[in-house]
């Protein structure tokens, strides 16, 4: 189908998914045993306060009215307020986002910058020592939980090199060096498993490409090997990797959250866990929805990226 139709279809799907998630959250919160108002106010609230909140939230109204109110609130960006701090949920989340985004982006960047070349080398030097090392490290990487890598890094690099702190976060507004020094270890912990998967994926994709007929045609043209690899092979090899890389963002999430706990970083992940522990439901609800939105659009982005680099889809159809 045409490009525009595809984009429209996928955007519609994205919205549908977010809608389903919001509904699921609505259902989940109301499935928790107990009075939602009491949950929101916390255990010690008095009857008047509870009644007030119940009225405010429309808890005595029919369920479909509540549902409609919920949806319209969300659409307006009103995710409620934190029980713990009283802050509006979205603002609270936004405030905690920077460290998480930093770790995620730096982690992914490091991973990709190392993994793709490693995968290519692995494929072109198949079964030689470069291959064994890269593949071995990749296997180890995908077998380690991010948080454990974080702990190990903390105990080794963190204690050995004073310049690299093992705790806390520094915003980029305080300078790139402080920021990077705080972000480096967590990002490495998160990035390593990701890099492992990307390396293996790149390797197998590259190996497949190397066996394709058009690579032989390129040789028959007398082109030099490096040109054949980077001009003829690379794009074809990376296309499946792009797809996988996008899907893998979901795997990163668990890692980032856990790593924030290890390094004591006050990021979004930590906020989420603490909120669950404290039963700060508005934050939990809001976080779930925000994460879904981010994921859905990230998947959409990756899909579109793939479509733009694959001519078969971009210029579909043929004679």
């Amino acid at each position, binding site marked *: 189908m045409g490009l525009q139709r595809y984009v429209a279809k996928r955007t519609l799907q994205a919205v549908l998914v977010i809608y389903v998630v919001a509904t699921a959250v609505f259902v989940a919160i109301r499935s928790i045993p107990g009075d939602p108002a009491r949950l929101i106010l916390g255990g010690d609230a008095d009857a008047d306060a509870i009644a007030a909140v119940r009225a405010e939230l429309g808890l005595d109204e029919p369920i479909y009215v509540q549902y409609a109110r919920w949806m319209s609130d969300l659409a307006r960006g009103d995710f409620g307020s934190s029980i713990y701090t009283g802050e509006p949920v979205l603002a609270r989340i936004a405030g905690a986002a920077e460290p998480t985004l930093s770790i995620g982006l730096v982690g992914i960047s490091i991973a990709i910058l190392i993994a793709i070349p490693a995968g290519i080398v692995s494929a072109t030097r198949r079964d030689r020592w470069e291959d064994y090392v890269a593949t071995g490290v990749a296997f180890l990487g995908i077998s380690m939980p991010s948080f454990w890598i974080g702990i190990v890094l903390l105990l080794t690099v963190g204690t050995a090199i004073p310049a690299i702190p093992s705790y806390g976060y520094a915003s980029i507004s305080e300078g790139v060096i402080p920021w990077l020094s705080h972000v480096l270890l967590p990002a490495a912990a998160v990035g390593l498993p990701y890099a492992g998967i990307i390396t293996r994926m790149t390797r197998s994709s590259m190996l497949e490409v190397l066996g*394709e*007929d*058009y690579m*032989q*045609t*390129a*040789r*028959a*043209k*007398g*082109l*030099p090997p*490096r*040109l054949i690899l*980077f*001009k*003829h092979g690379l*794009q*074809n090899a990376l*296309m499946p990797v792009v797809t996988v890389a996008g899907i893998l963002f979901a795997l990163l999430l668990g890692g980032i959250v856990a790593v924030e706990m290890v390094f004591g970083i006050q990021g979004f992940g930590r906020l989420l866990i603490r909120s669950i522990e404290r039963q700060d439901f508005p934050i939990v609800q809001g976080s779930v929805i925000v994460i879904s939105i981010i994921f859905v659009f990230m998947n959409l982005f990756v899909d579109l990226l793939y479509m733009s*680099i*694959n*001519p*078969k889809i971009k*210029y579909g*159809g*043929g*004679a």
Partner: protein
Amino acid sequence: MSLLAIEDLAVTFPVEDGPDVPAVDGVDLQVREGEIHGLVGESGSGKSVTARSIMRLLDGAEVTADRFDYRGEDLYAKSEAEMRAVRGDEVGMVFQDSLSALNPVMTVGEQIAEVVRHHGEVDESAGLLSELRRKYVTGTSKSAPSWRRAVELLETVGIPDPEAVATSYPHQLSGGQRQRVMIASALGGDPSLIVADEPTTALDVTVEAGILDELRRLCDEFDVAILLITHDLGVVAETCDRVTVMYSGSVMEHGRTDQLFENPAHPYTKGLLRSIPEQAPTDGELATIPGSAPDPTERPAGCPFRDRCPAAFDACTDPLPEHVVDEGHAARCHLYTDGDDPDEVTWETGTTANGEQNGAAGETADRTPATEVTDG
């Protein structure tokens, strides 16, 4: 003078946990300047392997030959770097499956233009960095000399609206168009020899005719020799000046097309000619060569065809001789070692030159023609 002269070529593929595969065993081949030379054989005959050996694209195989000269220079004495200068520049190759042989993520025009650039046909840089920049950053400019030449070549091979086609991707074109693109790309370096490996096998008959005409035309106009590999004798009859017939890794017969068709010497050639559908009587059954080609690892000693040959006799276990039938026409068959007249060997009677019915012939006569020859 021969453009390409190969003598006693043998190609063996080593196999893990198994016997080595002697795909080609003692092949002589000579291609002259400006001629279209057909290399015919059924699948498994080793014709594709022979073709790829010219380009030295057989990784991992053991290749030996008494002589393997292109324009008098030993191709197998060259280093890989020197060979890269030969590929594309002196010898171009056209592959059978145009869809898989063309890179799906590059425009057709670019795939031709790069050959032009790389072999210095135009004044444009073709270094690694410029190529990568062209690929990932700027794209190839439509006014660049290599692109203009690519469009010219597309027109030369008979593609209408070459400008538009040049910006297309392979999957957007028809099979016939893609095959022409491959030919254009083979011509990009202005070679003297094009090796075409079954270029029309995947195409339907009308399209095939167009491509063959094109090849003939190019050969005449540009004085390019073409080594045309095929399993289809009809194609050979239409297009080729000279023919080499291969079977199970060896040459059975070679000569001018008219010589071979009018006066075939080898029983295998005769069998092939007999089985061309056009030759069959309209009310009769199609003739075939009973049995199938042997597995290369289980090839019989001597003549590989003897198990299916109606005229086989005990001398056929000896290594193949070369018998000259006429000028430029020779067959490798023991039937002629006594200097007997080839006309007496036929498929119908299954008699040897000295008029005796023999065991193999008797068996052949009993088999029904419905047994099919494995075809390419």
